[in-house]
């Protein structure tokens, strides 16, 4: 399986009060054709920032290093005009908040048509017709009328469908979905996840799905990368991660969510809080909260192999040897 997107050693630093702080450090992952990679972690772990770096949507004064290769081409090196040809065309994005990410003063049809007119060079009339088809594709009833309506006339679930229609307009090869269902009710979430699964399978799209919900990961993803405080701490095939979680943080995350079936047990929380950007310690970033922390954890662990395509950034697995990429 050829990798469509290869991210290597991505490091992102933000300027805060005249100093640079690392929000993301040494993040590497691949997404193959038609594959869905889940990027999981809690707020502030750097998962959204990572996706914005791939899209080159980070504010200026942000230092980004490493490589983001899309079909062999390093996106961090291409010029802005060229990037514009890729953004929304080859790689598109769905954001968490369908309320704020649609333009309130433009009709739905205009917003979907924009990328078609820009990238596909079609006439306005043709773009409108295609917009209606796209709305039908994402399961919007009364598509012929909705195309002329404004975002405020739609419900949250409908707006998220419109966002998906916009992202799908140019049949991109990579879709980045940043918490696409977090703002939605569970029954609507089920509809949207179902839709995304169908669309990505039919179009062989590679997807980077960013979420904090392990349930969504288990249902949607082929592979998972778990992020903590700006680093990927564990990465592997979805079954591997759920059957044999190796990093104490992954284990902790799985233990602290209440279960919907089976015996009701007291939750085992991860004590403490996520370190802030300005306050990142040395060595393993999870060590201060880790129940298994050892002396060696004051030094930075590398990514060790713990199974087939399964890596873990933890000293407990150091004897397994460093993975080669």
């Amino acid at each position: 399986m050829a990798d469509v997107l290869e991210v290597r050693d991505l490091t992102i630093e933000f300027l805060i009060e005249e100093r640079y702080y690392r929000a993301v450090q040494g993040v590497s992952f691949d997404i193959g054709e038609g594959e869905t990679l889940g990027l999981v972690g809690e707020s502030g772990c750097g998962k959204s920032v990572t996706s914005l770096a791939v899209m080159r949507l980070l504010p200026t004064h942000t230092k980004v290093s490493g490589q983001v290769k899309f079909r062999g081409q390093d996106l961090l090196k291409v010029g802005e005009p060229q990037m514009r040809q890729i953004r929304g065309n080859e790689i598109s994005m769905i954001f968490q908040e369908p309320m704020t990410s649609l333009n309130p003063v433009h009709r739905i049809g205009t917003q979907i048509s924009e990328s078609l007119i820009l990238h596909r060079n079609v006439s306005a009339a043709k773009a409108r017709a295609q917009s209606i088809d796209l709305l039908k594709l994402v399961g919007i009833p009364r598509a012929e009328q909705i195309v002329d309506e404004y975002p405020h006339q739609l419900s949250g679930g409908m707006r998220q469908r419109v966002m998906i229609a916009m992202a799908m307009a140019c049949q991109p090869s990579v879709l980045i979905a940043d918490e696409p269902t977090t703002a939605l009710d569970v029954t609507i979430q089920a509809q949207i996840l179902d839709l995304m699964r169908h669309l990505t399978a039919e179009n062989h799209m590679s997807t980077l799905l960013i979420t904090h919900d392990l349930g969504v990961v288990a249902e949607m993803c082929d592979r998972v990368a778990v992020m903590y405080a700006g680093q990927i701490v564990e990465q592997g095939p979805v079954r591997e991660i759920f059957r044999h979680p190796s990093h104490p943080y992954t284990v902790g995350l799985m233990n602290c969510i209440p279960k919907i079936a089976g015996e009701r047990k007291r939750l085992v929380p991860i004590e403490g809080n996520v370190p802030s950007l300005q306050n990142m310690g040395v060595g393993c970033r999870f060590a201060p909260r880790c129940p298994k922390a050892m002396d060696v954890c004051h030094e930075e662990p590398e990514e060790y192999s713990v199974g087939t395509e399964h890596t873990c950034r933890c000293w407990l697995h150091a004897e397994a040897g460093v993975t080669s990429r």
Partner: protein
Amino acid sequence: MTEALLQVEELVKYFPIRRGVLQRTVGHVKAVDGISFAVNQGETLGVVGESGCGKSTMGRSVLRLIEPTKGKVTFNGKNVLSLNKPEMRAMRREMQIVFQDPYASLNPRYTIGQTLLEPMKIHNLHSPGERMQKVHSLLERVGLASEYARRFPHEFSGGQRQRVGIARALAVNPKLVILDEPVAALDVSVQSQVLNLLEDLQDEFHLTYVFIAHDLSVVRHISDRVMVLYLGRMAEVADSEELFTNPLHPYTKALLSAIPVPDPDAKRERIILQGDLPSPANPPSGCPFHTRCPVAVDKCRQEVPAWREVKSSHHVACHLV
């Protein structure tokens, strides 16, 4: 069976929709439309439903933070809705609330100490000298250092603020605490800390909880009994285990099947509901769920289903059960 601490009968809250210069009432949002339940001493009643189902309005109406339109609320044998203002204020010592948003529900200009002193001052509890001591012990009890009393809300994380919100509710030694989405804004690792804290406090202070949430796994974890709401009406009430293993109402079934399970090999039959929630300003005739129900028949469109006990302490409103 112990006596009910809180008894709610046929609670109704309609918000008027006003239009035009004369602000004439042109309709009503039927946020809560006839909800009845009882909560026993020491029990946790979970209330679940999607946005707009009336769960928060219900919680606030019980405390009269929103004045209910109709109904009866009995707390500890007293009719809450007939109390005048000073009486109601005294009553609130016994019934407290913790809000969802730990960012918006603390006064940014008050130190944590001032926030916690306020309820004690209002209810004239403890001597002024003892109050600060009480603040320190409350902070320690919810897992915060006592010197945090001098700090302001912006210095805290979401989880810490929610702990402050819980400490504020406990400052007056209430009997009943209404928890309105207390962990929805928190990350999972912090959510589990707060859930454990709530369980410990319940044991220690013999608290009775009404736990309002949209997250079904959280509700299952903490509740003894669960009530499922849909468009301001009750769909189903049962003991937690019973409801989650043997749901009867088609809405409850769909809701349970829609939750993504953190197990890649879980095989489940998923019921995907079509369409969106109808507007509570214009609820469907008959059973409010019939527009999205996969098994609806003609009767459902015409008649409102009766609230029936189909098994011991398992109630449901559905023609087909």
